[in-house]
């Protein structure tokens, strides 16, 4: 019970602390440092207003700096040192990693994940967004397809363990194989190469709902006239979908795609809980965890490789956001 109590105290302290900080700092600026009276009242008000944004931003900038900016630099710096952190070895950790078969396998697998999962989730999301749109019970269907979004990756791995199990009476896949006359069950998570795809499907299953919700909103935002014009010109439903609708929501499709790509590079839970990285299913995030607590140099080196893979998407995102603000 103690941690729970501690949690409540933290909530109270945190909330009062935050509100108190904003209120008190604001008050001090307005009444003590730059009081809006006396001979310099006008100048003081201006100065206070110039300072105020930074008062509002300070806690966020501090937390972001400490918990996200510092680690990027800190991780890179740490990855240049040996295991104990005592000796500077330049890129020794990276060289050692590239000489490891498992690391190369993780990179290859990760590239497959990056190709397959966003494509699969966007594809299923687009199909279900389009198909459920006109149905009277479409919202119920959407809700059910969206549901896995709420489930943890660990929970999802367990759910799919019941589908993939190496047992005719537990695993659905093996039960179906038995129906078609298979003599003995197979462990699909041990089939070389293809087991990766079974794991990827778990993430596709989770992310399809996300893609569907966003693409569905985008499809609804398409101007009615463009579709009507196509109907009058005699376009069939498939032509309308592929030639009229898809081009108009291309921007949103790209956003969905990149968002899922970034997620793929972070998720280690599925591989960790399903195969533990065995049978040739290792990916970078789970590979990093094999070094975590054992060799900080290697662990940070793997993390930085992940960062390098994310970097292009990050730059693209920032450029996109800046263009939009203009």
């Amino acid at each position: 019970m103690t941690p729970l109590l501690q949690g409540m105290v933290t909530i109270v302290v945190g909330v009062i602390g935050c509100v108190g900080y904003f209120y008190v700092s604001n008050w001090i600026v307005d009444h003590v440092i730059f009081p809006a009276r006396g001979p310099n009242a006008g100048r003081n008000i201006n100065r206070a207003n110039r300072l105020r944004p930074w008062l509002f931003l300070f806690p966020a900038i501090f937390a972001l700096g400490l918990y996200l900016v510092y680690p990027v630099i800190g991780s890179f710096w740490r990855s240049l040192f040996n295991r104990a952190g005592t000796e500077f070895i330049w890129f020794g950790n990276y060289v050692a990693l590239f000489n490891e078969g498992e690391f190369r396998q993780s990179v290859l697998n990760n590239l497959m994940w990056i190709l397959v999962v966003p494509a699969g989730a966007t594809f299923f999301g687009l199909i279900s967004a389009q198909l459920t749109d006109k149905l009277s019970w479409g919202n119920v269907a959407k809700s059910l397809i969206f549901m896995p979004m709420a489930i943890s990756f660990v929970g999802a791995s367990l759910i799919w363990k019941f589908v993939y199990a190496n047992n005719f009476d537990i695993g659905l896949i093996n039960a179906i194989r038995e129906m078609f006359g298979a003599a003995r069950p197979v462990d699909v998570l041990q089939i070389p190469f293809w087991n990766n795809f079974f794991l990827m499907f778990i993430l596709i299953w989770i992310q399809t709902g996300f893609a569907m919700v966003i693409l569905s909103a985008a499809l609804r935002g398409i101007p009615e006239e463009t579709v009507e014009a196509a109907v009058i010109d005699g376009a069939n439903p498939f032509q309308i979908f592929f030639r009229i609708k898809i081009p108009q929501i291309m921007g949103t499709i790209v956003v969905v795609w990149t968002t899922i790509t970034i997620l793929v590079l972070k998720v280690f839970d599925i591989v960790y809980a399903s195969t533990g990285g065995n049978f040739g299913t290792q990916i970078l995030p789970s590979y990093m965890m094999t070094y975590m607590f054992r060799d900080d140099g290697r662990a940070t080196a793997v993390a930085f490789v992940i960062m390098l893979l994310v970097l292009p998407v990050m730059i693209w995102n920032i450029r996109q956001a800046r263009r939009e603000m203009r």
Partner: protein
Amino acid sequence: MANTAEKVAMQPGFTLQTPARSRVAAKTSALNWAVRISVILIVLLWLIPTLGLFISSFRDRDQISATGWWKAPFAVELTFRARAPAADQRLEDGQWIIEGSVFDDPEQSRWFPDQTGEVTAFGNRGVAPAEFPAGQTAEIRDGETLRVERDGTFVATSSEEFSGAGPRLYFEALTPPRFTLANYETVLRADNMDRAFINTLTVAIPATIIPILIAAFAAYALAWMEFPGRALLIAAVVGLLVVPLQLALVPLLNLHNRVGIGQSFLGIWLAHTGFGLPLAIYLLRNYMVGLPRDIIESARVDGATDFQIFVKIVLPLSFPALASFAIFQFLWTWNDLLVAKVFLPSAAESQVMTVKIADDLLGSRGGDWGILATAAFVSIAVPLLVFFTLQRYLVRGLLAGSVKGG
């Protein structure tokens, strides 16, 4: 009949016009059916795995491993073991005979409390418990026979006197489908999942509330205050949105160790707060920018300070965005495995549910499907509840976060 025809005629797809028109109508309705069937198939594919887990969690542990969850409503054939008690034997025409019923054995009281049942097969060896169909007389070895009838009565004969407690016999009988809460009891009591549940709650709630406050002030500054470097800060937030968590683990854990926080709840709250901030600021700023300028301008003209505008106008109006982020952050912290593994001690008393399942149950209870299903369901029950009650806000938040970004 006339009534039916009328009903058909009133349906939108029905038409009495030219053949060409009705061909088009037929094509459209075929397409409609194709659409419906595909949607049903997708929904089933998306729902069935979760349904399987849910049903399995309520099944009796013997039945789970005997038949698939999709056969849960049907009777299950289970194998049992019984003994022909040597004490009951009698000598008849030079043969030693034991008669009785397999259901009399107290071992069977769990499944056959009224001592009746239906035997489908029997055997005398544990490796082949269903070697012979019920009703057949089985030759076991020289001069020894065994027969079990469908109603459970058995006859064992031997040319020599039965020794010891009497021969073992195995049989297979139909058991009615049984649903129980026993798995939940085991998981929550014996497996300490209740502790893990409370730990998860302890991690998730402060880690949801604290970042909202910090982010709301920052988002207001980024949305409605003019100052140099604003665009740069917004770009930085967008960039930080995608920084992989993995980078933060080693430096921050070392930092926490240096300042004395170590692996603790305080540490994980701080970590989740930091990691959740970019999304919080981004979502809230996107929402606040869209608030009507008139309201804020007129409040300024009336002499309200930024602090007052924020607290009295912007914050209440931003409730939907606050709710969206709160749901995201709650689901994220509840479901997280990585941050919990690194920032919380690995000892049993501070394990959260995801860690408990992934590191503990999957290893030690690997083959115990009922326990695994139940543990998983306990861990996903709260997110599912949040999801189904607050879905509206979740969808709104997703849209604010992504569509605008395109």
